[in-house]
Each structure stands twice: as structure tokens, then as C-alpha cells.
């Protein structure tokens, strides 16, 4: 017996309604299917755990103190005298320094995004929402800022001010907000013209409410993706500064500094370069896998 066309239509509609899921559930499902992104997230999770737990491990005596110098064991090979990954030119435990180094890298990577977010949002929203002269002024400003090579700017800043966590965070954030500002502006410009904004505006929404309730949530996906990709950039810049000797000062262990120290003694003890180098490389790789995964999950239009 033939089913009436109306009934079929209703059936289909019901099915669609039943399987409908929210943005975040959908994003999570898509993210989960990306094996590399999940692996990256797992690695980052482990790193975060390490960063939190390593002082505890030292207190429990499982891990050596990262700044303790064992002058009798200088440049120990991996496995020698209880140094699982060897020791450096001052006899400090490489494994311990490596684990402690994750604290600097992760905090730079993540906290810098916390500085970038308000700056980028404010400038991008202002330029995109108000348009006209404000837009023109702000965008010329970002254009000029964009022309300044980022590594050079960060180097100049830390050469002028004493390199410590604060100046390094500030300098890296100062060169990296431009990308976010441009993205937010672009998002706002395209969303602004949509019907639902017009509807909200004609029903009397004040500008601030419009921005917070409509513009922001609708551009959240690309913002999250941009910030995620910003994390490895910040980690990279901090590592370069440390490698060039103008970053966070010793004895605080950082990966960039460890590569430099190991590199100085590369002929005697090549492994002391390899471990921190791989730590930096794989951390950055993990973050860019997460970024790729999030981009596919949150922002299908940006997918390549």
C-alpha cells in the first residue's frame, strides 16, 4: 500500500528533529573523529598534568630538583648514575629540567591568549561594528602593526626591558593580537548583515546587547580556532627568546634554553639537545593538530 506523500514528509521531518544536535555536541563529535587532534589533545593533557605535578614529584623524591647541581656528574649520558635522560653541563638532571620546562612553555602559550583575547576582541568588534572612520583608523593601525616583523619586535622589547615572565608575555601578546582583531572584524562585518541581526536591531536591542548576545556567540568558533593556533606561536617565540639567550633567565629551566645549553656541548653530549628539541617540536605539533581538529569541528566554512 502506498504511503501518502504528506505522511512521508512528516516522517522525514520527525527524523530530522530527533537527530538534531547542538553546535557543541556536533563539534565534539567531529573533533573526536579526528585521530590526530585527539592524540594532540591527549599529549597536551599529559603535559598539563606534568606541569602541575612536577613540584610534587620533587617533594616526594621521585624527581630530582631541576636546579640542583651535581658537580660530580657533569654531562652524564642517559641512564648513567641515575640520570634517566642524562645531566647537563652543571650536572643538573635533564629529565627534571625537561618536565619543569613544560611549565614555562604552557603558561606562555595559554596566558598570552588571555591577553590577546580582550585586545583583539575590543579592536575587532569596534572596527567591525561601528565601521566608517573608526574602522578605517583601527585597520590602518593594525596594518602598520602587522608590518613589524614579530620576532624582531619581541627581541627589541625584551632587550629594552629586563626579560622576565611579564615582559615576555606582554611582548608576545603585543605582536599577536593583530590576527585576532582582523578575524573578529571580518566576522562582525559578515554577521552584521544577516537578517537576525536586523530583526534584533529593529526590535530595539541596544548595541552592547547586540554585540554580546548575537555577534560574539556567532563568531566564537573562529575565535577559538585562532586562539588555539596562537598557543604554538607564543610557545615558539618564548623558546626562540630563550634559545637566543634573551628569554627567561637561568636557573629557571625552559626548553629553548636547554636546547641552547645542550647545543653548546653538542659534540660531547648530543642527547642533551635532542630531548628538549623534541619536547618543543612535539608540543607545537600537538597544538597545531588540536587547532586543525577544532577548525574542522567548529568552523566548517574554514575547512580545507
Amino acid at each position, binding site marked *: 500500500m502506498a504511503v501518502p506523500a504528506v505522511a512521508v514528509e512528516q516522517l522525514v521531518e520527525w527524523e530530522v528533529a530527533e537527530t538534531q544536535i547542538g553546535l557543541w555536541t556536533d563539534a565534539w563529535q567531529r573533533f573526536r573523529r579526528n585521530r590526530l587532534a585527539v592524540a594532540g589533545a591527549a599529549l597536551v593533557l599529559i603535559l598539563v598534568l606534568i606541569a602541575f605535578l612536577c613540584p610534587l614529584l620533587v617533594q616526594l623524591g621521585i624527581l630530582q630538583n631541576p636546579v640542583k647541581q651535581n658537580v660530580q656528574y657533569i654531562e652524564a649520558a642517559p641512564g648513567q648514575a641515575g640520570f634517566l635522560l642524562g645531566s647537563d653541563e652543571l650536572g643538573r638532571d635533564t629529565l627534571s629540567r625537561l618536565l619543569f620546562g613544560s611549565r614555562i612553555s604552557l603558561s606562555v602559550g595559554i596566558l598570552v591568549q588571555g591577553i590577546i583575547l580582550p585586545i583583539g576582541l575590543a579592536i575587532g568588534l569596534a572596527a567591525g561594528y561601528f565601521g566608517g572612520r573608526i574602522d578605517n583608523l583601527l585597520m590602518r593601525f593594525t596594518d*602598520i602593526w602587522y608590518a613589524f*616583523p*614579530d620576532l624582531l619586535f619581541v627581541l627589541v622589547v625584551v632587550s629594552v626591558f629586563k626579560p622576565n615572565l611579564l615582559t615576555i608575555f606582554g611582548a608576545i601578546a603585543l605582536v599577536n593580537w593583530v590576527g585576532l582583531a582582523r578575524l573578529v572584524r571580518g566576522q562582525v562585518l559578515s554577521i552584521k548583515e544577516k537578517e537576525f541581526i536586523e530583526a534584533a536591531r529593529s526590535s530595539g536591542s541596544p548595541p552592547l546587547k547586540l554585540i554580546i548576545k548575537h555577534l560574539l556567540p556567532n563568531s566564537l568558533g573562529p575565535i577559538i580556532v585562532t586562539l588555539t*593556533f596562537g598557543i604554538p606561536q607564543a610557545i615558539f617565540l618564548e*623558546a626562540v627568546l630563550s634559545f637566543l639567550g634573551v628569554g627567561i633567565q637561568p636557573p629557571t629551566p625552559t626548553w629553548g634554553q636547554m636546547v641552547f645549553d645542550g647545543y653548546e656541548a653538542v659534540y660531547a653530549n648530543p642527547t642533551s*639537545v635532542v630531548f628538549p*628539541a623534541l619536547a618543543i617540536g612535539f608540543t607545537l605539533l600537538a597544538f597545531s593538530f588540536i587547532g586543525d581538529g577544532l577548525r574542522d569541528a567548529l568552523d566548517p566554512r574554514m575547512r580545507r
Partner: protein
Amino acid sequence: MAISEGRSGRGALLPLRMSQLAGSRGGSLAIFVGKRILWMVPIVFFVILITFVLMHLAPGSPWDRTGGRQLSQAVMNNLNIKYGLDKPETEQFKLYLWNVIHFDFGLSYQYEGKSVVTLIGGGWPYTATIGFLAFLLIVPVGISLGVVAALRQNTRVDYITMGFATFAASFPNFVIGALMVVVFSVVLYKATDGNFFLPSADFGLDSHLIMPVITLSLLPIAYTARLTRASTLDTIRQDFVRTAWAKGLPERLVVIRHILKNSLIPVVTTLGPTFAFLVTGSVIVETVFNIPGIGRAFVVAVSSRDYPMILGTTVLFSVIIAVANLVVDVAYVFIDPRVRLT
């Protein structure tokens, strides 16, 4: 040094604005080029201004020495007079701008009696040689990797190429450089009893160039390959390519005449960021391989607070990037007639 696409455009002057064009193409091209050249003036001005302000915000003076070798106040005063630091700051800034216009970047603080122009001139051959060789490597390798990956999309070739590109884009160049030294200079040296290795000490312009050039070019190669792949994938789905296949053209001709010709146009835009990579990359690569170029000189100047040298190199680097972007944007207009100018 981009880790992701987000960063790659840094150093770019202005994105091409493809809006409606009024008037004839020839006339507007001249206006476009003129505008872009004029736009470089405020850019360079602000780069100088920002760097200058930063330096004068700095606590302490460039003559501060750590340890027991602090100079006496009288000596510092004399040094301030010699280098013009006793004048008011606005005066110094005006003087500096005036001198820059006359191609005088002042005297270096760390090398007595040497001008910044001399020092930069001394490092220039090394930086330029390495940059030029890297560029020669980047363009063909990056493009062919991208095209091959796209033509063999979702095969092993594609996965390997793109996997390599992801690695090369994620691993920072100083890490790659250091790891290459470990493998090719240390491990290989020890394994072959010193018969076969790549040299990394005592820099010279011979086989010493191999590792720095590869280190410098890996990231731009990855970037170019990714972009070429994306652009080629776009092209091979176009109707005119299907037509070319359908009329029975041999693969070679379809690829060269129809696919390559069209998919390489957007790749030209990567040359701008590539220059930015090469310039900032030189700072890192020259430090890793101890090359006496401008990048290395910049790092040394930064750690010894040699302000005129820092200013001079920053200005030079910004101008190089700005000019490269200008050339790329103008070239783009010539290559792709569809581009509309502002």
C-alpha cells in the same frame, strides 16, 4: 616560522583590495603602485618610531654594565654627549630621521668607531647568499610537492608530503637546525670516523651552507606546498580542466597548460610571506650556525643594547619585507588579469 596559516601573513603590507575599478587599467595600475609606495613611508616611519620610543622608555642607559665594571658618571656623560643622548628625546628623534633620510644610521655602541652601515654591509653578503639560495630551493621544491600531492590526492604520496609539511611547519627552525647538527655533524662524524659529515663549526661559504639553507627553507617549503596543493585542488575541479581531459589531451599537457598555469597564480602571494620568513629566519639560523650575517649582528646588538644597530637592522628588515610585498602585489596584478585594483 608560521606554525599555522594565521601567522603567515605577518609582515605583509596590505591585503590586496579587490573592489570595483573605475577608469582604465593602465592608469589605475600606476595609481595603485604609487599608493603602495607612498604607504611604505608611514610604515617605515612607525617602525622607527615604535623602536625608538621603546628604547627610550628603557630603564637605565646603554652604558650600564653588570658586575664590577660599571662606568663612572663622568664617562657615561661623555658617552652621552658623543652619541647625542644628552639632547632632548624629540630632538634626537628628528635628528635620527634626518640622518636616516641621508642613509646615515649612526655609530654602533659596541664596536667603537664603526658605523651601523659598515657593520650591516659586512654581514650583508652572508645573509643575502643564504637567503638567495634558500629562495632558489623553496620555489621549485614547494611548488612541485604541492602539485604532486594535489594530483595524487588521498594517496600515500599526498599523505607523506602533507605529513612532512605539517612537521616542517610545526618544528621551529632552531630546533630543526640543532637536530640537523646532531645528526649530520656529530652522529655522522662519529659513525664514519670523520670521513663524511656536514660541517657546522667555523663558518665559510661552501659546504657550510647546506644545513643553514635547508633549515631556513623548510618552513617556507611547507607553507608553499600546502598553498599550492589547495590551489591545485581548486583548479582540477574546474570545468575547463574537465574539458581538457575530455577532448583527450595527454596528461602532461593538461597538467602544464591548464592546471599549473592557473593554480600557480595564488601561489605568487606566498612569496611575500616567504620573504618575511627568510628575513626573520636569518636571525635564528645565523645564530644556530654561527654565521656572521645581519641576523646574527641583530641578536648580538639586542643582547648588548646597541641601540643604533638595533634600530638600523629593524628598519632594514622592515623595508626589505615592505618592498618584497610591494613587488609581489604588483606582480600579482600583472600575472592575473582578473585582479581588481583599489
